[in-house]
């Protein structure tokens, strides 16, 4: 089921945000703002025909390997995976419950490779998967979604150097550049910019896009399976943390905010129907 029409993708994105909001409020847990900045990216990857997967055969050899290294946003993936049939929809209601499979960070969840929770691991693991594909002449592509705050981790740059050196052009990174880490704006806390030239100097091709524009996301992924460049690709997706809810948007402390019961109505209203 590939969706290409922008308005339908936008509907999916709205539904994802609505589900995430309800799940997190119900559980009193989860990173709403972090999930909202990468909603369009996740929707494009899974509904838009970018990633290859088979929900009837989750361990299909030819599946693309998607790594949610930006682990706080994992809750944004759950409504998509359940909608696509990776696991039953009832699991969304049991988010963080003892009889459910879904927690704030993904482990042993159908559709999620390995375990994510600690920042800075995913790019190196993705590089290992991409290198193994080269060794075994496998066609899958490895896609890693990173947070911008995650790029403070030294291990990210160890992996960046490794992937550049080994010319892993079957590896695609996406940075959810929402400009906010947990307790401040990134450029106030510790400058990440110039981010593009950092990645370029580590041997990566870099494309900068608006991470909420489906057109720009698809344009960035155009021809990504058969890239002529020998370099790995980093897509820096500029986004708004908390996108869609006014009191979360660009709020430097928004990372940990779960709307209260009172705020819930306002949030529901803003996300629309």
């Amino acid at each position, binding site marked *: 089921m590939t969706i290409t029409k922008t308005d339908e993708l936008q509907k999916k994105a709205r539904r994802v945000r609505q589900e995430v909001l309800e799940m997190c409020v119900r559980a009193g847990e989860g990173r709403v703002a972090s999930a909202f900045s990468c909603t369009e990216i996740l929707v494009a990857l899974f509904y838009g025909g970018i990633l290859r997967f088979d929900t009837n055969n989750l361990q299909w050899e030819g599946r693309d390997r998607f790594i949610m290294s930006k682990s706080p946003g994992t809750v944004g993936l759950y409504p998509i995976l359940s909608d696509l049939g990776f696991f039953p929809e009832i699991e969304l209601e049991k988010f963080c419950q003892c009889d459910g499979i879904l927690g704030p960070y993904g482990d042993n969840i159908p559709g999620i490779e390995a375990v994510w929770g*600690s920042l800075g691991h995913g790019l190196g693991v993705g590089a290992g998967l991409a290198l193994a594909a080269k060794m075994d002449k496998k066609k899958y592509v490895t896609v890693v979604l990173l947070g911008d705050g995650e790029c403070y981790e*030294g291990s990210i740059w*160890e*992996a960046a150097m*490794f992937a550049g050196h080994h010319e892993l052009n079957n590896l695609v990174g996406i940075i959810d550049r929402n400009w906010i880490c947990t307790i401040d704006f990134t450029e106030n806390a510790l400058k990440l910019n110039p981010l593009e030239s950092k990645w370029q100097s580590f041997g990566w091709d870099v494309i900068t896009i608006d991470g909420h524009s489906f057109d720009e996301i698809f344009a960035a992924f155009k021809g990504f399976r058969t890239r002529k460049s020998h370099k790995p690709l980093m897509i820096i997706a500029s986004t708004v943390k908390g996108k869609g809810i006014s009191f979360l948007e660009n709020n430097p402390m928004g990372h940990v905010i779960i709307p209260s019961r009172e705020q819930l109505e306002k949030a529901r209203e803003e996300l629309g129907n």
Partner: protein
Amino acid sequence: MNLSMRDAFLDELYNIAREDRRVILISNDFGAPSLDKFREDCASQFIHIGIAEQNMVNVATGLALAGKIVYMYSIAPFLPLRCYEQLRVHLAFKRYHITGVVVGAGYSYDLSGPTHHALEDIAVMNALPGMTILNASDSVMGAAFARMTYENPGPKYVRFDREIFPPIYNGQKDAFSDGLTILKKGHDLTIIATGIMVHQAFKVADELARHSIDAGIIDLYRIKPLNKELLLSTIPESRRILTMEENFINGGIGSIISALVADRGENIKLRRFGVPDEYFSQGGGREQLHLLCGLDVASITKTTLSWLGGK
């Protein structure tokens, strides 16, 4: 020719890798003469990761997820400590078929000072659920560990000394599946030693014999999972244990066995020998460091005799 434990291991791993292309060896810029052959003949199975231990574990994880059997090769202090959180998440929690192989156990790099001494690794690895910890005492065991780590899935930490020691297991067919070997039986006490301290244990036992004390010797080469039943069954009627290790006394095999004795409510008297809770920078070599720690044969013998004097 007697090989180092490391070379015996790498030679056997070379044989395995020639037959199974899934075997991948990653080095963080750490070499060995025996590694050169591997690098040349199994070039596509060798990865130089740079001096980047966190990425070593992460890349190993990606390779393991893709079905590879991965070995990470490093000098002892840096693999367990620089990237502990990666080891915790991917090896201990997810239990992939990845083996960390380190050279430079204890005071192996004696002259290099505390940055290069590996004295905490047993304690920190023991804290991780699911880890297997192997500590070799000779090169026969070194070669056997290559086969064991290849055939048994799950995460493992294998610890080798840097120096060459005389063989203990020469000519013996031992699968090393018991986790410990009773090298000598003794009526008066049992010395439980690990790594190179097994060699020290023989010298201590000889000294004690001159004082008519009959000491048994156990080589505890698998520290985790501990073979608890076999270990307890080796304790003589005198109910005395002496533990010997060249790593910090806090969290080492002495601590581990003490906990076992306490948990079982065993009436056993136990004395621990290891590196005290302190870093030593002194030059002069390993023997000097052993003197500072009371790990030399004379000190251990003297302390043991005075301990037994109260029996």
